């Protein structure tokens, strides 16, 4: 049998490289045993291998078999050792027939089907969430955005993880500057492992230490589509069930997908509620500190006396009380997030009972404080996007600090400071505190802004 020595080396080299792996398979097929296949069991679909590769090899001669293989989409002939290695690690099957070698696509992809979205629940409207498979995600998006202008650029990030990312944008609406900026930043990312959207978000953002998110991380395909139509850019990632949307401004984080379902006046009301919730959750604990320690004259007599009375048994200054209760609340939130579903209710019961009742009866915190903490906790969750909700959770301690040191003036000045900081921020060159990230002049985009 005439075989080239160079080629001999390819499959020998391959099996030498991979032989230590538990799921490594090397087989000889055909009546004359001169077809050789090499693949990784865990990455390939055994059904495909058996039906389309193993069985036909006994039913036809070599020439027919070679022709038969090359008709499959996703099957290619190559001699490049490096490429062969890469593809085998991806789940391709290396097939050697005489002197030619083929790569056959038999990838087995496991993912958790299309589920309904969990982190961004809405009342009415589509419930699909993005999955871990980029192909399916693109399917979900393309089905909702049937336009030839929807362009997809692919990239690979991660020296080890080799995560495929897709940059999606509407060619006619996208801002060229922003697109260039994003692409250049993506190309500069150099990491080993990329496993979540948040990570990538961190790598492509401007500043290392910042508190407000400048890109939306979403799991809703309809939000992606809506933002694409506004001229924004979506970054999809393989193995990650989330998409990144850029540029994103402050207002975008307070837009729920419900807003478009609701009647206009109702929608505005809901949006107003969210901003009020933001204000309350950020300032209420700080106001409590300021009112109890510095400026009790602002409140009505009754409330002042009520606070004074309920604080009478509390030994520590007001801000210690506030920080203590807020930390307890954070622990409760964090714990109920991480706890297994089966014992989840325990956290809420124990936390609710102990924090709500016992703490006041023991005189550790005042009654009013409990009300404030619950108001803060509830209004925090009014913010529809998690990234912003977490930011706000941190932000309120900043205000408490200034309220505890300077009273009401501290709150005013630190609020002004936060607004100034926000005004100075840019999301991929777009002013962060602007109402809408991209100008409405691009047609449809304006009308859809809630």
């Amino acid at each position, binding site marked *: 049998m005439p075989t080239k020595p160079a080629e001999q080396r390819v499959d020998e080299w391959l099996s030498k490289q991979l032989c230590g792996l538990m799921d490594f398979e090397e087989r000889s097929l055909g009546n004359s045993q001169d077809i050789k296949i090499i693949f990784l069991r865990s990455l390939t679909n055994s059904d495909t291998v058996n039906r389309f590769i193993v069985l036909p090899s006994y039913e036809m001669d070599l020439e027919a078999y070679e022709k038969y293989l090359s008709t499959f989409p996703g099957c290619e002939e190559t001699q490049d050792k490096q490429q062969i290695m890469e593809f085998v690690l991806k789940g391709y099957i290396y097939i050697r027939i005489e002197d030619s070698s083929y790569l056959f696509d038999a990838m087995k992809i496991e993912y958790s089907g299309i589920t309904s979205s969990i982190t961004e629940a809405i009342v009415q409207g589509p419930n699909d969430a993005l999955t871990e498979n980029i192909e399916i995600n693109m399917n979900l998006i393309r089905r909702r955005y049937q336009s030839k202008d929807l362009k997809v650029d692919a990239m690979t990030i991660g020296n080890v993880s080799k995560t495929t990312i897709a940059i999606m944008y509407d060619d006619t609406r996208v801002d060229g500057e922003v697109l260039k900026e994003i692409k250049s930043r993506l190309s500069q990312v150099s990491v080993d492992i990329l496993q979540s959207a948040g990570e990538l978000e961190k790598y492509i953002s401007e500043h290392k230490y910042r508190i407000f998110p400048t890109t939306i991380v979403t799991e809703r395909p309809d939000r992606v589509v809506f933002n694409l139509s506004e001229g924004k850019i979506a970054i999809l990632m393989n193995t990650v069930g989330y998409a990144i949307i850029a540029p994103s401004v402050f207002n975008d984080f307070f837009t729920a997908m419900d807003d478009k379902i609701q009647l206009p006046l109702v929608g505005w009301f809901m949006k107003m509620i969210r901003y009020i919730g933001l204000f309350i959750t950020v300032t209420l604990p700080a106001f409590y500190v300021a009112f109890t320690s510095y400026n009790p*004259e602002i409140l009505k007599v*009754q409330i002042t006396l009520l606070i004074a009375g309920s604080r009478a048994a509390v030994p520590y*200054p007001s801000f210690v009380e506030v920080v203590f209760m807020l930390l307890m609340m954070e622990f409760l939130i964090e714990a109920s997030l991480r706890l297994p579903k089966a014992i989840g209710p325990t956290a809420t019961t124990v936390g609710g009972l102990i924090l709500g009742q016992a703490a006041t009866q023991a005189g550790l915190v005042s009654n009013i404080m409990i009300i404030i903490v619950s108001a803060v906790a509830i209004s925090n969750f009014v913010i529809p996007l998690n990234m912003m909700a977490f930011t706000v959770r941190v932000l309120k301690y900043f205000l408490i600090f200034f309220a505890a040191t300077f009273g009401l003036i501290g709150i005013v000045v630190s609020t002004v400071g936060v607004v100034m900081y926000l005004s100075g921020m840019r999301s991929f060159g777009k002013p962060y505190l602007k109402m809408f990230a991209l100008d409405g002049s691009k047609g449809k985009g304006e009308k859809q802004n809630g």
Partner: protein
Amino acid sequence: MRKCLNLMLVILLFMLSLLLAGCQFKDVDRRAFVLGLAVDSVEKKEGQGEGGGGGSKKHLVQVSLKLAIPEGDPTKRSQEAIIVSQISNSIPEAVRLLKSKVDKELDFSHCKTLLFGEGYAKTDIREMSDWIARRRDIQLIGHVAVARPTAKEVLGVRMISERVPAYALILSLGKEGTESPFIVSIYSYNFRRHLSEIGADPILPLVEKEEEDVLVINKAMLFDKQRVRAELTANEARLYNLLKTQGLRTSFNVELDDNIYTYNMETTRAKFKLLKSEEGKMIVQYKVGGRAVLEDNSKSVTTTGPILEQVSKAASKQWEKEIKQFLVKIHGTGLDPLGWGLRYRAISWNNETEEEEWRKLYPNLEFSVKADVRIQYSGMIR
């Protein structure tokens, strides 16, 4: 890395230092909130007025404070209050002495009731009003009143209806609760302003202790720039309010053909003009009026259009008579609580001489009142 660690340490130390709040950091539960302040003058006796630092013992004052004891349980019906008082020869000194009678820091920021005892108001109120205006934590939106028999006694009255100490006084003096037409409501900033203003004199409501837990506020006191000069009766206080405010809610009686008609004012209006008469005298011309609804009549006469006309006319005539009497009485005291002088200064151009001119014009002021009361039928299903 080293730098980062140092930064962390600094931040940690900084945070920990917050726990050492110290004694200057006064939380709300370490303050005693003064809800009412009363000042009386005291007969001079030997051995009183300690801590006064000798000096001129021209007069002694007794300062009483009503302090709220905060109650944590809002379901409890009432809140306790304590009254502490101190005699000294000046108000700030008395307050300073009072500080050693309470366990918490005195906080005047919720002190919205400021009472002068009648005796004090009749001698000299300038010190008190000066102190109120100067003191940083007394808000100038407090209510000022004269108290009878003494301010301390009035402050000590605990109305059954009040849930926060001294709140009944705030509600009624500020007309936040009751809308009695007899209460002349004056903010302390206005009082202070009228004390120094040329062309307007202060007026204060009079709070009387009637029974152990009943207060009556329906009279008023007229001040010059220093002390009480005259007292207004309940009816006069109401007329004052009628002339001073728009939309006073009150009712009046009018007698017509032996039948007493009572009508309730829906709207009232009052304005005045200063006119020069031919003899060079100044005429204060009031135009008052309003829309009213008939409330009852003593003989249950069927009300018809013509009768309502007659009643309206009679009511207007009565108003003209009563208001003119009232104005003449005020003029007789030589005071100016309604601010005629202020108006004169506002409309005259001769800035240098206007004060002098007004002083000459005032004794010969004449008054004319035009009243226009429209009484309507409220409608009734028979």
